[in-house]
């Protein structure tokens, strides 16, 4: 194996190496302590098992992580994604209504309205950040607080339960043996990847996130880039809201997507995108989201009491973050040199 050009060295240099290592560690833990984690069954033509669960349950988080990646890459952050999820969920459920077996408005209109509201909410963040020049954390904090109030206004302060079967497909349906949310994630991911890697938008995001002033002097419309990115992040949260409301068959303005912004930021950071902006990796963020979800699923499947769950999660997060620190990385590099990886 050649140290500089071998597949190992090449993998180590790619952005997704460390997220992969972290995810492998969680899987390794499961392999030893709860092998049933990897059991897959086919029932009624649907795939079942913990791995499928991770994909299914993790899809809102993966969607949030995709949008959050783009926002963090512009050196921003979006704290309002959880509230936007609540707005999206409230909009769609109110429009479908609580009547058994039928929808008050055609379902596609309800869905489009929910996504439109989310896009608007994101664009509002974008306006505050790019035009009013408010710090991203403060700007999105506004909607983080106000958003749940808006969602409550939409639902009139009540938890709306829906009984319209076709809508349940979004969160609970199966396609080609896989849960339908996985396809939504795949679609949004493909769209985001194409827009950032096959158009100039990705370059502009990374440039703005690294040095906004240099980007401006080079003719990049840094304001519009930010506006579009925050709107897109809102849209991603909107999709997540659809999945969550469909799953729960209801909209709870107070609890839908609660604290998902923190898991989302965590997923992005684990995925190798720096909080200071610049280079980003969508694939890394997806791996990060899967890691966060795997940890939760593992903890529950081991039967850890709920009151300890947060502590266990904290320990895992701490370990991962330590793995990422330059100090530890350099130490590992030295270690692998000393052990004489043949060159």
């Amino acid at each position: 194996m050649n140290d500089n050009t071998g597949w190992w060295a090449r993998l180590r240099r790619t952005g997704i190496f460390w997220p992969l290592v972290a995810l492998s560690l969680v899987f390794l833990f499961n392999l030893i302590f709860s092998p049933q984690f990897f059991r897959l069954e086919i029932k009624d033509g649907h795939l079942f098992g913990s791995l499928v669960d991770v994909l299914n349950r993790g899809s809102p988080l993966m969607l949030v992580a995709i949008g959050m990646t783009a926002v963090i890459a512009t050196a921003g952050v979006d704290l309002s994604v959880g509230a936007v999820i609540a707005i999206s969920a409230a909009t769609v459920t109110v429009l479908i209504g609580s009547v058994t077996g039928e929808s008050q408005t055609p379902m596609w209109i309800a869905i489009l309205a929910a996504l439109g509201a989310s896009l608007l909410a994101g664009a509002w963040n974008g306006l505050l950040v790019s035009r009013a020049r408010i710090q991203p954390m403060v700007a999105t904090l506004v909607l983080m607080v106000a958003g749940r109030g808006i969602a409550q206004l939409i639902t009139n302060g009540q938890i709306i339960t829906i009984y319209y079967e076709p809508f349940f497909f979004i969160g609970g349906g199966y396609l080609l043996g896989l849960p339908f949310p996985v396809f939504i994630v795949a679609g949004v991911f493909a769209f985001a990847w194409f827009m950032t890697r096959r158009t100039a938008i990705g370059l502009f995001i990374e440039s703005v996130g690294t040095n906004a002033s240099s980007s401006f002097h080079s003719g990049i419309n840094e304001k519009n880039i930010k506006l579009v990115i925050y709107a897109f992040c809102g849209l991603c949260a909107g999709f997540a809201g659809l999945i969550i409301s469909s799953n729960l068959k209801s909209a709870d303005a107070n609890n839908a997507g609660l604290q998902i912004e923190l898991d989302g930021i965590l997923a992005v950071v684990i995925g190798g995108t720096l909080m200071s902006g610049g280079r980003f990796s969508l694939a890394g963020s997806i791996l990060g989201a899967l890691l966060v979800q795997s940890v939760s699923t593992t903890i529950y499947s081991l039967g850890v009491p709920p009151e300890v769950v947060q502590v266990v999660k904290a320990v895992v997060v701490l370990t991962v973050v330590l793995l990422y620190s330059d100090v530890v990385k350099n130490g590992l590099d030295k270690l692998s040199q000393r052990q004489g990886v043949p060159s």
Partner: protein
Amino acid sequence: MQTNELLVMQGIHKTFPGVHALAAVDFTLRAGEIHALMGENGAGKSTLIKVLTGVEHHDAGHILLNGSEINAKSPHHAQSLGISTVYQEVNLCTNLSVAENILLGREPRRAGSIDWGAMNARARELLTWLDVDVDVRRSVGEYPVAVQQMVAISRALDIDAKVLILDEPTSSLTTLETEKLFAVLRRLKEQGIGIIFITHFLNQVYAVADRITVLRNGKLVGTYDAKALPRYQLVELMIGRELEELEDLGGLKKHFEPAPGQAPVLEAKNLGQVGTLEPLNIKLYAGEVLGMAGLLGSGRTETANLLFGVDDADSGTLAVGGKVEPNPGPLASIQRGLGYCPEDRKADGVVGALTVRENIVLALQASRGWFNYLDPRKQTEIANKMIQMLQISTPGPEQLMKNLSGGNQQKVILARWLATEPDVLILDEPTRGIDVGTKAEIQKLVLSLANEGKGCIFISSELDEVLRTSHRVMIMRDRKLVAELQGEDMNEQSIMEAIAGTGVSTEDTAAAAPQHAVAAGSAR
């Protein structure tokens, strides 16, 4: 030497990675004098002050205060030794009261709690002495900058300062406020305090300074009596000719004169912005290098910013290729054929985390829009072509920009603009902080671009550089275009006179023999 030497700095050396910021600099401050420290950006003034106040530590040399060696470990330590600094940006706590600011950290106490009466009285006493009448209980933020400046000075004085350093104290003051400040400085001088005064305004130096020390490129040029040093010569000492012999430009510079009837490629009429630049007219022809000289803060960069649309002009018009566009942003400017290398390379040019390739195609891609994406192969092709053409030393186009040296980063930014194939290139200090060899390369490049028919505006604080490359020179002073020279009239002396704003002839040059001028860099 004099016996009243308060502060002596001897043979101060300071190196930062890749830069010799201070080389064998000597500096002496007498008790009861105002000593101006002069030099262009990067001359080493602020490094010298930082060494003195313990922000940085010198690599070699001695600092003596009242005859005993000191070595300030931190600004706080320097203060306790009696060295106080008032910085350019007033750094006070604007939401605390005037008295609190003056006595912060040294509040008079009684029975463990702050004695407010004593504190306010002491603050009032200090300010009265400075001839400032304010309510010391109101918060500092309620008062204008001039008062804040005075508060900062009284804080410095309360620390029992022996040495008071004023770093550009007048940049935000009006003429009247400046006068008041100077009156205070003169009184402090009578008290036996040594004052180091840093400013870019020449007339202020002559208004208060007793002696002047000039630094250039981290080296001491000399210390002079203010009365014996004519203004014109001070400018020469500050920006004068480079000691290093630059490579010959090899006949690249050709005589230029616009063809009869040739329309200017760029024409500004009455272009200006209230408060930053008085309306000016510029004509630039294709194939011409138009130099722009002037001291720092004279309006050079402000002009460039207006031309490229970084800032919006509030008067006048700017036509490129005969077409006028009101308030174009950088993007529209690129699209109409302009390119701009900004003065502050690090802040406004370099995108460190991106690769050399991405940095090179950035402006070109911006002008093509979001969706008209340059094929990555095409990007590499352009990058490789530029790397070869400008001899950028990098392992390859995928190297990260931040790993390149300053000179090579500057070449990459030039490449960024060349890739857009501009008609007009505005270069603001393109050779600052760059080694001599690369400097000559960039100067050559500018001339060959002009020979290819591009118009160039070349801004530089180094006079010889402007003279070497430009066909015509505009001179800026006090945010005004004060002269335009070409042909026979364009020489070092005429430009310096224009910069200094004096018609002083050379006859009193001889009177200005430095008291103890040291040949730069030589050991004593």
